[in-house]
Structure formats: C-alpha cells, structure tokens
C-alpha cells in the first residue's frame, strides 16, 4: 500500500503528519519526495545511514568533429536547450529534459547519451522506519527526475510518501501511483483555497483522498464546510498547541512525547485502509 501525504499550501504540516504516522505504525518505508527541501529525515536523529548515491539524468554529448552545425537538433529541441553557432553547439544543461530527441534527429550520429548529476539519494534506517530521501542540487530547476528515482528505490509493503507542496508537476510525480492521498491543510482561507486545488489534482488522477486538519482551534470553519460539501472525509484533526509547535521546531516527533498520539496515528492508518476498501 502506498499512501502519499500532500497539500496545496506549504507549511501546513505534511512532514509533521508523515513522520509521526511513520513512527507510530511499525514497519514502514518513508520516502521524502520534497526533494527541493527534504526535512523528514531530520526528525529521526538516531537514524543510521546505509547508503547514498547520485541521481543522474541523461544529457546529450556532442562530438564536435562529427557535427556539421546543421541545426536539426536545436530545431527539434522543445526546451530550447541547444543553440547551434557556426563554430560550435552550446548546450544549456539545466533546460535539457533528457528526452534523447536531439540524438535521434542528428543525421551525422554526432550526439550520444551522457549523464549529469542533479542530486543525491539517501537511504537510512531508524528502528522500524526505513528512510529514503532525495536532495536536489542547489540551482537545479528540475525536481521530477529525482522524485522518480527516489520512488524507484522504495521497497516494502507499506510506503509513505512525503510530497512537495503545490499542485504542479513535482506533486503529480510524487503522488502518482498512490493508493491513497492524505491532504494536510490548516483551517484558514489560504489553507482552504490551496486544498481545493489539491483535491482537483488528486481527483483528476483518480486517487482516493482524505483530509487532515492541522492547527484546529485557530481560523474558521471554511475547510470543514468544504469537506462536508465535497464529501471528503476528515480523518484526523491536530489542535493548535504550543507544545506541538515547540517539539516540531526542535525536530522532535510529538507523538513520542505526547504518547496518546501514537494510537491516534494508528487509527488514522486504519481509517485510510477502510477508505481504500
């Protein structure tokens, strides 16, 4: 079973929910697919790092001796990643999606596949929790290939995915293939607006979803009314408590200090299983 934890708006508590859920339910693999700003491993300070390796993407390598500067490659490239000058060909690496099209259209066979590192993947373990996360190199625009690689490393019967914020391509890549998507929001107008976009995304992908409302007690009833109207189950509410915020800020899993929450996170998993059925 694959459960992804997402949200339209950032900072609503995706990582809070994903890490505490992971720590409460026994054997599980926790993937951090927020590769731009991966944080979930920080909450497992006792982790033992097992491995780390580079994430590489394909880029073209151009043999300047064979190249006749005919310009077919740059004409074909949908991302404007190649510019052909009278003396040489310039590749804008960060714009390249690695589709391989330039190599296919080159009439001289001057283009072959090369690789380029865009980030790193880490594997660690903390008790029952297997951790996998990706870290995108600074200045690198494209997160999706790294997200794809992190997901390809996942093993085990139960996989939790901490997704990036937003509702664009990195989120799609992270959530794709999930059996269930948990949407974490906060009871504010910003939280509601971004939740409504996220719901459209997961519904479009035909993934069943439920909501966790974080920091209840502040804000308004907008999120609750919306969920009732849209028939989306609210599976857990986490109150606005200074204690939780302070533990989070120090990198402590609050369910380990406020142990009544371990049962609540187990119940959350049980409710998700029910929803899938």
């Amino acid at each position, binding site marked *: 079973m694959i459960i992804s934890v997402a949200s339209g708006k950032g900072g609503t508590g995706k990582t809070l929910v994903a890490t505490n859920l992971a720590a409460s339910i026994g054997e599980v693999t926790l993937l951090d697919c927020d590769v731009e700003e991966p*944080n979930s491993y*920080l909450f497992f300070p006792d982790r033992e790092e097992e491995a780390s390796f580079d994430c590489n993407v394909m880029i073209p390598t151009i043999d300047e001796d064979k190249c006749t500067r005919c310009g077919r490659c740059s004409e*074909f490239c949908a991302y404007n990643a190649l510019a052909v000058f009278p003396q040489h060909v310039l590749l804008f690496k960060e714009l390249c999606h*690695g*589709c391989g099209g330039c190599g296919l259209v080159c009439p001289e066979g001057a283009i072959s596949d090369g690789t380029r590192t865009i980030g790193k993947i880490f594997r660690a373990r903390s008790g029952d929790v297997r951790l996998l996360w990706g870290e995108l190199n600074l200045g690198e625009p494209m997160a999706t290939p790294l997200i794809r690689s992190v997901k390809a490393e996942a093993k085990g019967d139960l996989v939790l995915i901490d997704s990036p914020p*937003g509702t664009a391509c990195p989120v799609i890549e992270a959530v794709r293939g999930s059996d269930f998507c948990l949407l974490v929001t906060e009871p504010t107008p910003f939280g509601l607006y971004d939740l409504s976009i996220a719901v*459209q*995304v997961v519904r479009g992908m035909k993934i069943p979803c439920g909501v966790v409302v974080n920091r209840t007690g502040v804000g308004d009833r907008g999120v609750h009314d919306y969920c009732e109207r849209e028939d989306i189950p609210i599976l857990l509410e986490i109150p606005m408590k200074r204690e939780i915020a*302070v533990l989070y*800020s120090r990198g402590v899993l609050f369910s380990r200090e406020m142990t009544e929450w371990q049962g609540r996170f187990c119940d959350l998993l049980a409710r998700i299983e029910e929803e899938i059925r």
Partner: protein
Amino acid sequence: MKQLVVISGKGGTGKTTMTAALACLARGVAVVADCDVDAPDLHLLLKPEIRETHDFFGLQTARIDPARCIECGECEKACRFDAIRDFRVDPRSCEGCKVCTLVCPNEAISMVDSVSGHAYVSETRFGTMVHADLFPGEEASGKLVTMVRELAFKVAERERKDLILIDGSPGIGCPVIASLTGTDLALVMTEPSISGVHDLARILGVTEHFGIEPLVCVNKYDLSPEMTEEIEGLCRDLGVDIAGKLPFDPAVVEAMISEKTLVEVEGPVGRAIRSVWEKVRGRL
C-alpha cells in the same frame, strides 16, 4: 525600476502574508506580481478585479490517433518519461518532447497545444496586480512565472512604477528560480524550527548561486528562541543581514480571515513589518 522577490525555502513561513503587507506599504509605487502560480493565495487578501485575461500555453502534449496507430509500441519504448502506456498518452506525464512523433512509423502521433492556465492583470486597493492560475496538475509553472513577470514589467513601465513586488513559491526548483532571476533583492522568510533552518541554508545557497542579494526575516521568532539564535548564527556566518523578526500572534490568522493585511490592523506584527519595509527600502 527595482524588483523585490519574497521567497522562502520552506512553505508556510509567511511569504504571502508579508507580500500583502508590503503591497499595502508600497501602495502607489509598486506593481504586485503573484508568482506562486500553483498555490496562489495573494488574491484572497488583495481582492483583485480582473481587467485583462491572457491564455497561458504550457508544454505541448502528444496525442495518438487510434485510427492510425498500428500498436507497434515504438513510442512507448522511446518515451523517457513513461508517459505512454497501452498506446495512450498520459498528458500528466508527457513533457512535450515530440520524440514519439519521430519514432512512430505511421504518423499516428501529433502534438497539441493546450491552454494550461491564465494570467491576469487586475486592479486592487493598492494598485495593479499581475497574477495567474495554473490548471491543477499542469506543468511548466516556471514558464507561467516568467509570463507573470513579463506582464508585470510591462505594466510597471506603462504606469511608471519604481518597484515590482513578487510573491515567490516555496522550494528551490523551477518556479523559484524563474521568480528569482534578475531581481534586485530577495526577502527570505523563515521560521525558527529545524526544518526552517535547514531550508533557509539551502535557499541562501540558491540566492548565492544566482548572485541575488538576500535579506532574511524570521517569522514567529519567539516560538523557539534557541532556533532563532541558530538562524542568526547562520546568517552571521554567511554574511547575510536580518531585516527583522516577527512575533507569533494569533491576530495574524484573524487578519487573514477578515481579508486584511497585517499593516491594516494594529498590532506588534504590523509594526515589525513596517520596520522590515524601511530596511528593504533602504537596501533597494
């Protein structure tokens, strides 16, 4: 003309709330651009009235004509984005590279343009605002950010405004880079938590990479004095100035619900933001 971008590595640290308050303080001199195109919230506070709507064309996507498809599977083999399965294109995974059209032996695949969002030029109580919506799940948010910034630039020239105030998106990837490049100053929001510190260090690496001067603002600094100290230490080590620290105040959420910016309601956070604005103005 100057461009100020409000960003943060970590989400939910107060970018939009800050941008809205700055928009109020910069009333009359700035054009506001909401570049957080896949979770745009600024309009909830600024209540724009739309004057112009522009279609946004994202990446093209491939379409297979079932009448011409001979089910040879060449396209599926060639696609590096796993976007083709069972002789059908998943438009959500298709990156528009056109490789499938090259390898198809029967010319069954064509590329189609689709509108994947809109950009708007609107009127608000603080002046002109440019914003956008990306249809849920669409790609090329960086390209839409660029479109919003180009529109904002034109508007600022037309209206002879001195400043473009940009609300960025969280993270460090494509939409962030698109909203950051070519700006004069980045106001980086953060919060005193282990995630906040970690993400701040990364986004400051990105501003450095692109040669953009950063100023840091710590939100809810009193929630964790020790983490705030850590942020101050990090900034000191990197030679980055702190523009201000905002206290935790439940009134912030109340202001959001009443659709007001924090400088339109009285309180300690509003005062702190005014002083951040003075620092930012000095720097610009």
